């Protein structure tokens, strides 16, 4: 019995020492002036790891590029990376980054649950939180002082998507008030946020929604959804999907011989390389609404264009494929954070200076590779984030809308029947 309790005490002591170690060592090394530490959180394991890893590389490449160009005011940037696959891990790792690594800026993250938790802790601890991917509206609606989101929020995303649908409807001679719209969305936070945005906008615009269906993105077989779309006989379909279900919806549309006049996909489901790869010629003409992943370099500022080109090269070398949208979002958000916020504030030590620098940002729409600009509103939401329409043409994604981002003409609008494609 005594032995057992000693065993326990030893075990516990070792745990305490271990946690003590990890808390004491970095504190000694964290002298100011040597490096600027930035916390990078992404889900690098677990079910969100697909896009989490792409986003991580976007951030990492931006930091590497700034460092190679001499850092910020002679100081190198050090990325303190944490794997955050769920909300509990967010609580733990964000506290570690703040308490032990003494970071003053944290950037992330793919996954809204983790973003919520991370943003809350950062705000309470007076650390700048720089969100670049999560879209749930609520993140910037809680009166946080030090939370900024570079990416568009769900309701704006939905609104812009509905606007794009409207403009294409007009193009093919449909009266927007008479056209019928079907909205199908995966039932996670991403799909739901966007569906709400689409719904709000179409109500205002007077367009009729004939089907508003949520589905579970882990569905193996999407034929019921496609059949529902078919039965609704809508002119325009707006579908928010992840990749497996996105591919399957397209496949099943072909199998069931279903082609609406306009089909607008949203999200990674229709824009990832895997989509083109597994559908090949069937992907032709499919439209994906997202910030563009095919920037037109000649429209960008020459310096920016060079940086973007370098990013594209490095991303491909690191991951083996062209950067998807999340890679660009992470890269440009980190790029702005380092070059426009931290550089202006002269480092990360002064939170007020960083917030001021962020609030004063005034970057024109179209300046960043995804076509976004930067202008934060009071809540910390970027009001100049934009989405674009991309289309699969000859096995590649090209941007067809809006005009200032387009590098190709839209084809197959309205969509022809499958046997005529």
């Amino acid at each position, binding site marked *: 019995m005594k032995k057992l309790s000693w065993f*326990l005490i030893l075990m516990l002591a070792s745990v305490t020492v271990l946690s003590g170690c990890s808390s004491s060592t970095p504190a000694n090394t964290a002298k100011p002036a040597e490096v600027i530490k930035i916390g990078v959180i992404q889900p690098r*394991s677990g079910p969100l790891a697909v896009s989490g890893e792409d986003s991580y590389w976007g951030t990492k490449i931006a930091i590497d590029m700034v460092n190679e160009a001499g850092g910020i005011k002679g100081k190198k940037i050090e990325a303190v990376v944490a794997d955050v696959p769920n909300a509990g891990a967010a609580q733990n790792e964000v506290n570690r980054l703040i308490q032990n690594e003494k970071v003053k800026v944290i950037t992330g993250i793919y996954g809204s649950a983790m973003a919520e938790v991370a943003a809350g802790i950062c705000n309470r601890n007076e650390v700048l939180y720089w969100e670049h991917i999560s879209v749930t509206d*609520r993140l910037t609606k809680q009166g946080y002082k030090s939370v900024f989101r570079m990416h568009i929020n769900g309701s704006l995303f939905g609104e812009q998507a509905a606007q794009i649908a409207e403009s294409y409807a007009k193009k093919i001679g449909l009266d927007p008030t008479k056209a019928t719209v079907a909205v199908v969305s995966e039932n996670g936070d991403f799909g739901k946020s966007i569906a709400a945005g689409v719904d709000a906008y179409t109500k205002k615009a007077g367009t009729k929604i004939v089907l508003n269906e949520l589905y579970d993105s882990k569905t193996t077989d999407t034929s019921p959804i496609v059949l529902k779309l078919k039965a609704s006989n809508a002119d325009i379909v707006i579908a928010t999907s992840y990749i497996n279900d996105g591919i399957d919806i397209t496949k099943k549309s072909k199998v069931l011989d279903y082609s609406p006049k306009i089909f607008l996909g949203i999200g990674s489901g229709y824009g990832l390389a895997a989509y083109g790869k597994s559908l090949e010629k069937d992907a032709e003409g499919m439209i994906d609404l997202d910030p563009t992943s095919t920037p037109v370099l000649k429209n960008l500022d020459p310096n920016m264009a060079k940086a973007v080109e370098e990013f594209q090269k490095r991303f491909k070398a690191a991951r083996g494929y062209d950067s998807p949208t999340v890679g660009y979002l992470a890269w440009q958000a980190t790029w702005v954070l380092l070059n426009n916020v931290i550089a202006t504030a002269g480092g990360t030590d002064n939170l007020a200076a960083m917030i001021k620098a962020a609030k004063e940002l005034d970057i024109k729409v179209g300046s960043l590779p995804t076509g976004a600009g930067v202008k934060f509103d009071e809540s910390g939401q970027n009001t100049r984030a934009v989405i674009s329409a991309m289309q699969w043409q000859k096995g590649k994604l090209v941007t067809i809308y809006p005009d200032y981002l387009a590098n190709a003409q839209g084809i197959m609008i309205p969509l022809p029947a499958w046997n005529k494609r």
Partner: protein
Amino acid sequence: MRSFLSHKKSDYFICAAVMLLLSLGLLSSNKYTLDILITTVYFCTIASAWNIMCGYTGQLSLGHGAFLGLAQYTSTLLYTKMDISPWLGMLAGGLTAMLLALLVGVLALRLKGPFFALATIALTTILEIFAVKFDGITGGSVGITIPYNPSLGNMIFKDYQPTYFLFLCLLALVLLTTIYISRSRLGSNLVAIRENDLTAASLGINVFRNQLYALMISSFFTGVVGTLYAQYVLFIDPAGSFSVIVSEKAALISIIGGAGTVFGPLIGGILLAPTEIFLRTWLGSTYQGAYLIVYGVVLIFVILTIPNGIAGTVSAYIRKCNCKTEQASGDD
């Protein structure tokens, strides 16, 4: 009979020692250290609650996430929508979890082995689907953010020490309950059922009713700790609350530590919860997923080599020593 019935005093002693050591953490003000401790105590508590039902009856529940999530949603909705203090919400959450346990018990307790486990997994998934579906009430898949208004009444604190203190109190309460049960008639009935339910029934033990009591007590504490954790993280969503993974962890911690012993889940939690965090911090930023490989291999190894868990194995060893010394001294 298993060791815990013959080692009552040692149970008190060991639990008190461990609790005392854990409470040393209250002296720290480092939020990261405290978070590790809170997470550890959180898992110790869930595992101990799980142990009351599953360790003592031998039924494998992988659905404690259902109780946890239901209680979290109950207390959070009461707090955010009706402004009812989480202190009451915690109780309400525990009670709704108990009601669910009653339902589960009546329907599923007669299932054995993998089928009880599968039924509880299915139940968790069904609740998750409903939490997503009925978004008018639950907020849907986007989850609920609990507004940060630190005060004692809101059970939200600026620092982590008060939260940690609450977790420790709850763990102590669960452990005391476990000790009480293991000494009570209920405890000996449960063990008799675990060892052989037919024999137990033939001795006049009401198998079903005893298991149901255990399940309800277990689910109550699972619900209460769920509320506490929700008030700590300040965010809940269906995927995180109704998670099969949390249930799996509770089971693994309990079984590796030694299911059916009072302090087994405590040992398991203290060993595994920080290990997972350190492995993730250490390997997570370099090799994707590598920490889970290490974790998985360790789990398999432990289960294969010491199937009775650490506490079971160690106390068996000690009993053997004691027997020898007793024989040697001729003492009874």
